[in-house]
């Protein structure tokens, strides 16, 4: 699967300050075009996911059948309320993107920031596509929005066991630093609940997001979801 066109609007949102909504001029569009072409050559999208039956966990955590990981916290419990299964998912644009951004930072900082913003957008685009694939597999079932470790009160420290449960290093080459950063950097983990009954199909709200105080979008008065 490739990402033929990175979402321009979202890319530009990463690249502006809080005030105003400037229009990209022709020169900037040209820069974006050039960056997109090179970035698309560098991206190798990889992902893996696995579906687990939810079993009631002790101490309020959400336990998954056959998996050591227990999802702790009120927010994930609420998120998965009414779901019988959960999908754990990891996706990455792979190491080539990190290399490209690193290279650009030596002498082409303006390109580096464009690659960075574009890749952040592209990894979300990739997740959207994976979600469609899952929806296709699970036709007739209802899905929650994507919830990630670090959102709300789901601790970011669960990333290690999350990746181990997916065998993420072997399947897609995603690892963790001791500071809990995913590497390659343009990688995302997510949890999607599945249910036979309609779930609240609302997108993630700022209230449960761990970026709420500092989010680039929120600073501009926008929301990332929907």
């Amino acid at each position, binding site marked *: 699967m490739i990402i033929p066109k990175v979402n321009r609007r979202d890319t*530009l949102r990463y*690249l*502006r*300050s*809080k*005030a*105003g*909504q*400037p229009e990209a*001029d022709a*020169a*900037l569009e040209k*820069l974006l075009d050039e960056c997109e072409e090179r970035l698309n050559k560098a991206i*190798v999208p*990889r992902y893996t*996911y*696995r*579906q687990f039956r939810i079993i009631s966990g002790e101490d309020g955590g959400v336990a998954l059948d*056959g*998996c*050591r990981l227990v999802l702790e916290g009120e927010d994930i419990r609420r998120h998965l309320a009414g779901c019988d299964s959960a999908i754990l998912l990891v996706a990455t644009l*792979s*190491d080539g993107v*990190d*290399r490209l951004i*690193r*290279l650009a*930072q*030596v*002498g082409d*900082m*303006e*390109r*580096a*920031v*464009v690659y960075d913003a574009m890749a952040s957008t592209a990894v979300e685009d990739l997740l959207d596509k994976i979600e469609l694939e899952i929806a296709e*597999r699970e036709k007739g079932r209802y899905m929650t929005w994507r919830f990630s470790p*670090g959102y709300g009160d789901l601790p*970011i420290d669960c990333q290690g*066991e999350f990746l*181990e449960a997916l*065998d993420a*290093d*072997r399947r*897609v*080459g995603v*690892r*963790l*630093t*001791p*500071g*809990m*950063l995913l*590497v*390659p*950097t343009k990688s995302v983990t997510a949890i999607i609940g599945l249910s036979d009954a309609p779930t609240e199909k609302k997108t993630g709200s700022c209230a449960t997001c*761990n*970026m709420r*105080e*500092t989010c680039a979008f929120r600073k501009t008065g926008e929301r990332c979801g929907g």
Partner: protein
Amino acid sequence: MDRKQTFKKLLEDNEFVFLDGGTGTMLQNMGMKLGEIPDLLNIKDPEMLIGLQRSYIDAGAMIINASTFSSNRYKLGRTGYTTEEVISAAIAVSRKAAEGRALVALDIGPLGLMVEPTGNLSMEEAYDAFREAAVAGEKAGADLVFIETMTDLAELKAAVLAVRENTELPVMASMSFDANLRTFTGCSVEAMAMTIGGLGVDALGINCSLGPREMYPIVEKLSEWTRVPMLVKPNAGLPDPKTGEYSITAEEFADCMEQMIPLGLKLPGGCCGTTPEFIKTLRERFSKHRFTAPAAGAARSAVCSANRTVVIDQPRIIGERINPTGKKLFKEALKKRDMGYILSQAISQAEAGADILDINVGLPEIDEPEMMRGVVKAVQAVTDVPLQIDSSDPAAVEAGLRACSGKAIVNSVNGEEKSLAAVLPIVKKYGAAVVGLTLDENGIPKTAQARIDIAKRIMDRAVAIGIPKEDIYIDCLTLTASAEQENVLETVRALRRVKEELGLKTVLGVSNISFGLPNRGLINRNFLAMALSYGLDLPIINPNDEEMTGAVRAYKVLAAIDRNSTEYIEAYKDYVAPAPAGAGGQSSGSAGGQASAAGTSGAEGASGASGPLGSAILHGLKDDCARITAEMLETTDSLDIVNEHLIPALDKAGEDFEKGRSFLPQLIMSATAAQASFDEIKKRLARTGGGDVSKGKIVLATVKGDIHDIGKNIVKVLLENYGYEIIDLGRDVDKERVLEAVVENDVHLVGLSALMTTTLGSMADTISLIADKRCDCKVMVGGAVLTPEYAANIGADFYARDAKEAVDIAKKVFG
């Protein structure tokens, strides 16, 4: 017989050596939860493992893996067990299971952390963790080591070196590839074959990630690039996301594996999803065949990085610019450890067409091995061009080769006994290629014959210790035409005879030829063309010199190497003949046109930024800025240019961004354009000995644990272009290092960045250390997860929301 010998004997026999199948997936079927570390079963439930391993031996496995895939200090970190505890238990368990019927391999998997440059684990730290595991394995009685499922070439290299340097155990090494014939980190099959094969492993191969059908083309590729016995352990197809079940049967698996026999498959086995039944079926099927070693292919001269292979089957350019000799700026950069300057040299050469980069960091007053290690790592992080390690200090050569993630060239050895004895063993140990200079104790011989004699001596010595002929490149040495005119032809004649009579590749530094003559470029170009037509394979030149690179391109067309002139046409498709001399006017006319891509930042034009310079900065026109500044310097004081033109224009660009009238790339382009202006001013000041334009020194760092440094780098670009001198410590920086830089340089402002909540702790620690020791130094902080409140909480003096605010803070601090 010694069991280690038994393994070597198995490799020598004309029989297959059967390996085992999946362990983790089998254990999961037996009830182990996903995410559990199977290694701990060695202590908690050894009978479960013994049962599994026996069933593999019963099925016909001749070597079983101890359950030690995750037994290293990083993956065991949370379990409370040490590496040695788990490994000694595991080997004992497997010995018991084997009962002398099979050999026991210490299984070594990836450390679980990503090594630099993508991650922050250093190769040296990785080496130490692997050393610990390997030593424990040998002590516990393992028969051999199997390093497997690797995806990063540097990590695998560290593991192989750790085993070979600290134990006597034989080593099998294997990586996991994707269907695109690359590992997850982009490492190619041939790079693994050359780099890891070159380290002298006993078996080399491919495991995990794919099923046997998808693995065939990868095995085929490997068989073209190695003569080391091949091991192949595919998965049983792909797992189902819902059930975790694998997709193919033992019969299908054996069908596919059987097809690999003609490729020279020596050690078949299975990985995830395979069971004892798979190994049994495999063994039955293979009993109808005999192992046949693949026919030796044609020897091939090649070097590589993890991601790029350069086959020396045609002239390849070695870029000579990373070398301080005679370059004042370069020397300064080395002394200040300013990697930015060195890296820009690497990138510009790679973009200009260098196939290989020579790296020379020899300066009397620096620690050369340490510098070589640092520069090799830094260059590899930004380019995939293979490297040539250039030093007369064997310790620096070894440091460079260790750090090199790929197969490098060593520059150089010569015919002197001392050099041969010191350099060749290092070349052999790391599987590198080597440049042999045709000189010895008596200097450079005059005649071609005498140079060939030295070349032969070097070749014989190299081959005797196991360096293959195809990895020896001879430099017949260029002498200056002005001083030793007759010798020019001797050099190229010797070159031709080295190729024809000794069958070796040739390398030559070209530009010495013209020393002492006017219009040196003309001589260099013609000598290069001459040497190429005499058969030169590796010209060492400045690839940024378009005339020289062009001469190589032209030669490749004329010698029918560049088929249909494809590369030549690609290089010159936008070529415009330069205007005749004396036509005057604009001097630019290059093909790129990069400057014109700049944004028209700020819709309402250049108010607040006066004149053509201000406008050029606002529009991000780098070349124009340099030109206009140079013109202005004829009539205007440099400080006036800075204060009345540069700074107001930068302020305007910053304001446009802040007010939402422009985007970040446009602000950065304005800053970079201003840099061109500053450079002109600095040049002028250096010439006239005038004052310093530095407005103050600022230390910047991304804190320990954090590897995202793009935000810090944006701040750096902006601050630099306001005239501040930046001491950039990079990413993942210890707090002590920050303090050291502050004290050493008497710095009064530090900027710290952190991206993750998890690294804010080390930001707080760094601030409190600075506050303790240097109360006169202010700290500003920034980063996605920071807030002004949090910044104040951890004792920062300032919070900068973005790069523009960082500039405002600097102005405040320095007045």
